């Protein structure tokens, strides 16, 4: 490695809370070489974002401070710099890209102006020069028509384009180092692949050094040169990507690697348990040519002037009792709408849904009553899905009481059973969601679904918001519950690897329609539809020798939002 651009030595960050000192970053040291991509990997709370905030000295709270170590950037120690000097470092030397471009771009400023602003401030260029430079950068980050798109506002762009704009803002002052904090976590896989490719191209063309923070080992394997594994603020392992991935030294790294739901070799050994052993009985859920339309926003001033968008457009699906079906697709593909329609939470425009022989369109009241007592849903964001004012015990008790399936005297006992079932300690009954971790909350959410004693559970992206190791635990929990209680599971996810891992059958949705359906093993090994193939190809593999970019097809299937 050449002379490092950035050299961090025993960086320590501490927080003062109630007179106690908590060490958030514990003497972390690493170098960043020129043109190198360093991956910072770890779960939430491991301190990976904190390191990067410490780098630009934008710590989230006044109680948190750098208490030791040094950060050498081209001969200057950033720890010693005052606020005024830091301002010239931020942007000019170190650019940052964040997870959620929507909240980090100014919604009322044209994206071109947001880029030009930094150029004028840091490089002292005139208005027209800055504009020309901004247009040039927009072109570099892949805007097809930069001169016109200079005038776009963030809300006019898709998620992927917004992230490109965010990168353009970070690049505007020609920084040496780019810090990318989970830059693709909020994006769909196909868009994620494009953004990662862009970052690598920029590294090549500008000699940019990049610190990439991520929880996805697949991304690290595909893009980074070296990997740093963090936990509890400590650097557990640092080394060359191939070395860390193939021969991890630390036990935690090994468990992190094991929990990565990687895709098996194409056409490789297929697990045979996927065969449905039940004899052909009546399907539990039958969907026939379902259409769900939403009015487009805006005033319908003239009769019939209001347009409707079909979020679900002619979907037919049969689910047998005890089956596990995965529904995959990108955001906007209609999979969540489908889930809500099945549970009767969204009115149907046309078509039929029948649950256990009852038709939702014809016998609405009766069918709804049936669905409410025999189907339950698990949501994506576990904190938002539980009433924050109720303890877990109260939440469960309420369901049991309303559903009236368990006598009142047996409710406390049943709550304990449910907590046992989802692997939560019984004392969690007295906790509120905010005093629990994401994984614990999601377990509580599953317990609530189980309190219904359902025949069917619909899990809508229920692991998307969780850390990888927790994801693996929740998936294991589902697998276990399935085997104990002959549960029918509709598992909605955008992560194909997880669906491949858990489900027998998979349904691929694209623009409100089912484009492909079949046994998991078949679909993933031999995708028939180009969209399915593109989705599969876009998954960053944990094996660095299976490069993401080679497999990335051209613009054969446009992404929903960019199209």
């Amino acid at each position, binding site marked *: 490695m050449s002379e490092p651009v950035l050299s961090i030595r025993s960086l320590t960050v501490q927080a003062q809370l109630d007179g106690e000192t908590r060490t958030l970053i514990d003497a972390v040291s690493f170098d960043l070489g020129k043109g190198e991509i360093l991956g910072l990997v770890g779960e939430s709370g491991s301190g990976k974002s904190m390191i990067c905030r410490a780098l630009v000295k934008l710590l989230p709270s006044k109680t948190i401070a750098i208490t030791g170590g040094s950060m050498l950037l081209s001969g200057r120690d950033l720890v010693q710099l005052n606020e005024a000097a830091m301002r010239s470092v931020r942007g000019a030397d170190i650019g940052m890209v964040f997870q959620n471009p929507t909240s980090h771009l100014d919604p009322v400023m044209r994206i071109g102006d947001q880029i030009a602003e930094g150029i004028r401030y840091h490089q002292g260029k005139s208005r027209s020069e800055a504009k020309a430079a901004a247009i040039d950068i927009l072109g570099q980050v892949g805007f097809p028509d930069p001169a016109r798109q200079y005038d776009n506002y963030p809300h006019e762009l898709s998620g992927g384009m917004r992230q490109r704009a965010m990168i353009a803002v970070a690049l505007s002052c020609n920084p040496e180092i780019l810090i990318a904090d989970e830059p693709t976590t909020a994006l769909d896989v196909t868009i994620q692949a494009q953004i990662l490719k862009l970052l690598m191209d920029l590294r090549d063309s500008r000699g940019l050094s990049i610190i990439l923070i991520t929880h996805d080992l697949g991304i690290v394997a595909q893009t980074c040169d070296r990997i740093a594994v963090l936990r509890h603020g400590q650097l557990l392992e640092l080394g060359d990507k191939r070395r860390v991935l193939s021969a991890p030294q630390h036990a935690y790294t090994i468990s992190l690697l094991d929990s990565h739901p990687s895709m098996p070799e194409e056409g490789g050994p297929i697990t045979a348990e996927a065969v449905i052993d039940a004899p052909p009985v009546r399907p539990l859920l039958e969907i026939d040519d379902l259409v769900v339309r939403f009015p487009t926003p805006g005033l319908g001033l003239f009769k019939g002037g209001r347009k409707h968008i079909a979020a679900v457009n002619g979907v037919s699906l049969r689910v047998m009792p005890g089956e596990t079906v995965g529904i995959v697709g990108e955001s906007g593909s209609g999979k969540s709408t489908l889930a809500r329609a099945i549970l009767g939470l969204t009115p149907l425009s046309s078509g039929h849904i029948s649950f256990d022989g009852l038709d939702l369109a014809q016998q609405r009241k009766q069918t709804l009553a049936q669905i409410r007592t025999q189907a339950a*849903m698990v949501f994506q964001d576990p904190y*938002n*899905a*539980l009433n*924050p*004012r109720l303890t877990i015990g109260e939440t469960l008790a309420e369901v049991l009481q*309303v559903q009236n399936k368990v006598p009142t005297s047996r409710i406390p006992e049943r709550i304990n059973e449910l907590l046992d079932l989802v692997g939560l300690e019984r004392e969690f009954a007295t906790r509120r969601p905010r*005093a629990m971790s994401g994984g614990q909350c999601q377990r509580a*959410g599953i317990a*609530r679904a189980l309190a219904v004693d359902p025949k069917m559970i619909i899990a809508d992206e229920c692991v998307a918001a969780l850390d990888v190791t927790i994801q693996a635990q929740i998936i294991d929990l589902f697998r276990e519950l399935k085997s104990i209680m002959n549960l029918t599971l509709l598992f909605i996810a955008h992560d194909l690897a997880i669906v491949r891992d858990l489900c027998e059958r998979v349904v691929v949705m694209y623009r409100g329609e089912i484009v492909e359906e079949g046994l998991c093993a078949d679909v993933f090994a031999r995708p028939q539809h180009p969209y399915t193939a593109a989705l599969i190809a876009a998954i960053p593999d944990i094996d660095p020798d299976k490069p993401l970019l080679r497999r990335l097809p051209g613009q054969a299937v446009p992404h929903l939002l960019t199209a």
Partner: protein
Amino acid sequence: MMPSATNATRMNLPWSRFLGRHLTLATGAGILGLFLMVALTAPLIAPYDPIFQNADVRLLPPALAHPFGTDNFGRDILSRVIWGARIDLQIAVIGVVFPFLIGTFVGTVAGFFGGIVDAIFMRLVDIILAFPFLVLMLSIIAILGPGLSSFYIAMALVGWVSYARLIRAQILVLKNSDYALAAVSLGFSRTRIMFRHLLPNAIAGSLVFSMSDAVLVLLNGAAISYLGLGVQPPVAEWGVMVAEGQSFITTAWWITLFPGLSIVVLAFGFSLLGDGLGEWLGVRE
């Protein structure tokens, strides 16, 4: 990662440390508590009868016998201020509770059901807001006839609109939350979803607002009494006392100063309590 830790410790904090951390809340509650004590023990601690007139001691400046002085009828100001606390606390509390209850109910129902229900209630709110607040208050009191109960009725009829709007806005957001959706999918009744799941999460903001509203109600009550439409003399009420003292303001400042100061301090206590509640309930998070 931080909030979960602080939240867990917050629950089982010793009382003293709780107060130390929520100084605003503690100060506000302290001031209100003090006024409440004064109001409750008025017959015991007031040195004189508040409406007893004694021509011998007219317009005496503050002295040991009459710490706050006496007014033009020779009544002891201190005793009147102490007895006035009863009326003014009552005005602040009743003047807020009814608008709060009505507004909360209307806001919840309008926000939850939407459509025609929402449209009707919100147009009603617009109509009420279209009139200047005091004009509307005064006309209602004029119709009902002067007196405290008219004031309370007028407050209830006019004051609920702010609560309704606050709660409705919160409910509109919360009814699309996943836990509301979960509640629907679990077969909970609409009443249960509205009042057990949505309302407790929506109410913090208006609880805080009700404290600053209490200040406004207090001042309104004083203003109405000052205009002769609220509390009738000779009952001791701070607004009435200020009104009575105004003609002597250059010669006997104590008549107006002490009741006026009481209004200010009580109002201050309410706003501190409101701020403290806001901090504690995490409204600003």
